[in-house]
C-alpha cells in the first residue's frame, strides 16, 4: 500500500510539473492585455483579444496552412516510400534485405542536426528555399522508422496470403493494392499519426530553409515573430496554444493507436 501510494504521488507530481506550463499558457492567453502578468489561476475577466490579434494581425493563418501542407506532404511521401520499401523486402525477399533494414535503423539513430548542413546546401542549390519543396522533400530522410514499423507489420501478414494472390494471378502492384494495403490499414493509420506529429513539431529545419514569415511554418514562425517588433506576448501565447492544439487533439483521440503501433510491431 505504502509503496503504491508513494508511486502514485510521484506520478502525480510529474504530471503536474508537465501540465502546469501548458495550463499557464492557456490561462494567460485568455487574459486581456492589462492583466497579462496577473497570478490568478482563473483568467477573469476573460478576453479573446490575444487570439484575434494572433490570427488576424500577423501571418499566422498562412503559417498554419504551411505547416499543414508540410506535415501532410511529408507524411504522404514518407509513407509512400516506406510502404514501397517494406513491401519490396517482404514480397521479393531480396538478398540485400538485411542491409536495407540496417540502413533504415541507422537512419533512425543519426541525429537530424548532423544532416542539417548537407541538406541545407543541397536544398539551396536546388533553389528550394522558402518553398514547399524545401520544407517537405528533405524530411524523407526521416523515413527509417516508418520503414521498420511497416516491415514488421507486413512480415506479420501470413506469407500464404501473398502467395495465394500470386497464384490467383495478381501482379505485384495488385497484391499490394488489393491484399496487403487493406490488411495494413490500422498500421498505416498509426504510423501516419506518428510521422504527422513528428513533422508538425519540426522546428530547426523550417527555421533554416524557410526564414520568410509568410513562407515558414508556425513553429519557426513563432520564433520569428517573437524576435521582431510584432505581436504582444499575449498574442504569442495565443499563437502557441493554436500550434499545440492539433497535436493535443491527435494524442487525445489516437494515443491508443500510437502505443499499439509500437507494441504490435515488436519495436520498442
Amino acid at each position, binding site marked *: 500500500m505504502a509503496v503504491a501510494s508513494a508511486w502514485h504521488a510521484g506520478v502525480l507530481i510529474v504530471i503536474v510539473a508537465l501540465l502546469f506550463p501548458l495550463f499557464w499558457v492557456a490561462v494567460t492567453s485568455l487574459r486581456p492585455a492589462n492583466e497579462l502578468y496577473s497570478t490568478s489561476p482563473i483568467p477573469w475577466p476573460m478576453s479573446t483579444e490575444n487570439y484575434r490579434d494572433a490570427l488576424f494581425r500577423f501571418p499566422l493563418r498562412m503559417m498554419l496552412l504551411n505547416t499543414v501542407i508540410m506535415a501532410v506532404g511529408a507524411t504522404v511521401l514518407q509513407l509512400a516510400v516506406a510502404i514501397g520499401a517494406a513491401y519490396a523486402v517482404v514480397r521479393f525477399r531480396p538478398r540485400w534485405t538485411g542491409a536495407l533494414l540496417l540502413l533504415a535503423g541507422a537512419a533512425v539513430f543519426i541525429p537530424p542536426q548532423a544532416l542539417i548542413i548537407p541538406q541545407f546546401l543541397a536544398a539551396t542549390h536546388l533553389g528550394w528555399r522558402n518553398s514547399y519543396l524545401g520544407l517537405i522533400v528533405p524530411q524523407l530522410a526521416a523515413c527509417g522508422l516508418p520503414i521498420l514499423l511497416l516491415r514488421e507489420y507486413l512480415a506479420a501478414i501470413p506469407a*500464404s*496470403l501473398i*502467395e495465394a494472390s500470386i*497464384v*490467383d*494471378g495478381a501482379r505485384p502492384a*495488385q497484391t499490394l493494392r488489393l491484399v496487403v494495403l487493406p490488411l495494413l490499414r490500422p498500421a498505416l493509420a498509426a504510423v501516419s499519426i506518428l510521422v504527422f506529429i513528428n513533422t508538425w513539431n519540426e522546428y530547426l529545419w523550417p527555421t533554416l530553409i524557410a526564414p520568410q514569415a509568410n513562407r515558414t511554418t508556425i513553429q519557426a514562425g513563432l520564433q520569428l515573430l517573437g524576435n521582431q517588433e510584432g505581436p504582444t506576448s499575449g498574442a504569442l501565447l495565443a499563437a502557441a496554444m493554436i500550434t499545440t492544439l492539433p497535436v493535443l487533439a491527435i494524442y487525445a483521440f489516437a494515443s491508443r493507436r500510437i502505443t499499439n503501433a509500437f507494441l504490435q510491431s515488436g519495436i520498442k
Partner: protein
Amino acid sequence: MTNAVRPSEPAAPGRTLIPAPARANPATTAVAAVSGGIKLRSVRKSYGSTLAADLPALDIPAGSFTVLVGPSGCGKSTLLRMIAGLETPEAGQIHIDGRDVTTAGPGERGVAIVFQDFALYPHMTVARNVGFGLTLEAKHDRRNGLSRAEIQRRVGDMCDLLGLGDKLARKPRELSGGERQRVALARALVRRKPVLLLDEPLSNLDAGRRAPARAELIRLHREVAGTFVLVTHDQAEALSLGTRVVVLNAGRLEQVGTPEEIWRRPANLFVARFLGSPAMNILPVSREADSGDQRRLQGWRPADAVAVDAAGPLPARDDPGQVFEGVVDVAEFVGDRRVAHCVNDHGTWSVEFPAATPVTVGQRLRVLVPAESLHQFDAQTGVRL
C-alpha cells in the same frame, strides 16, 4: 515398430458413403478433356545443406488424384510449391501439359492451390475471395476475360456445389473451420485450372470433420475431372484419397504406385514401416535354413496373422506360413479389435485380432502368418527381395 499408435480407420473409408451433391451441378462440365499431366525431370532443390528434393523422374498422370506423402521434412511441401511455381528448383525441368513451366510464374502455369491455413483474404467476403482470381483474369485480359455477371454466376455455382450458397456475404472470420476449407476449395476450383494443388488441406480441421472432408475431396475430384496433387503426412489419408501415392523421404522418391500396390508390395523397409498403423513388424529371419547365406529381414502386418493362440495347436495348413512367438508386453483395446505388442528374443512385434479374444499382459502368444503375407527385405539395403 513399437511406436504403435491407435489404429486409424481402414484404408478406404467414405468411398461408399459419398454424399450426393446437394443440387444439380453445373460445375461438372468444367473441364471437357482431362488435362493437367505433370512431368518432373532431374529436379533438385536444397536449403543450405538440407536436401529438399532430388527426383530423377516423376510423372503425375493427367486426371489422377496423386498424394505426396512422407514424414515431416521429407520435401513433399517443397515439391508441391515447385509445381506451383512458389519455389524454383536449382536444376531440372517441370512440365505441365507438355509445356515447360520451370521458369513460369505461378499465375501462368494452369495451377490453383489450397493452402494449409486456407489463406483466405480476411478483408473480403466469401464471394470476393472465390471470385478474386477470375476478377483479376478479367482485368488483365479484357477481351477474353469473363464479364462481371458471368463471374458472379460461376462463383455462385461453385459455392452452391460446396454448400456455401448462403455464406456468400460472410467474411472468413465468421465461418467455421470446415466452411473456410470449402471456401479455399471453391476459390481454387472456380478458376478451372487443369491442376489443383492441395497442401495438407485437412490438417486444420477438427478430427470429426476430416472423414466427411475426405469423402468430399474424392467426390470433387470425380466431378471436376482435373489433376489433384495433395500433400499429407498422414499415411491413412494418402491411402484413402489417392489414386496414386508418391512416398517421399529426405527429398527422395521411395515408391510410386497405386495405394494397393504400395500397401501390398512396399518397395523397401521405409515404405513398409511408414504405412499402416500399427506399423509392419520387421524381424530378422530366424529359420535355420536361411541363416547361412544372406542377412534378411522379414515383415508382416499386425492384421495379417490368421490365427492367434495362447498355447494350443495352431491350425494345420498346406502352406504353414510362419509361427511367431512372444510375451505380451502391452495390450491395447481399440473398440472392434485388440492390439497386443509382444517381445521375443529377436525384437518386438504387434498383432491385431478380434476384441472378443482375451489377452493379458505377460501371457505367451503364438501367431501364424501365412506365407503370402510375409515380406522379405535385404537387411543391408532395405530393398524388397
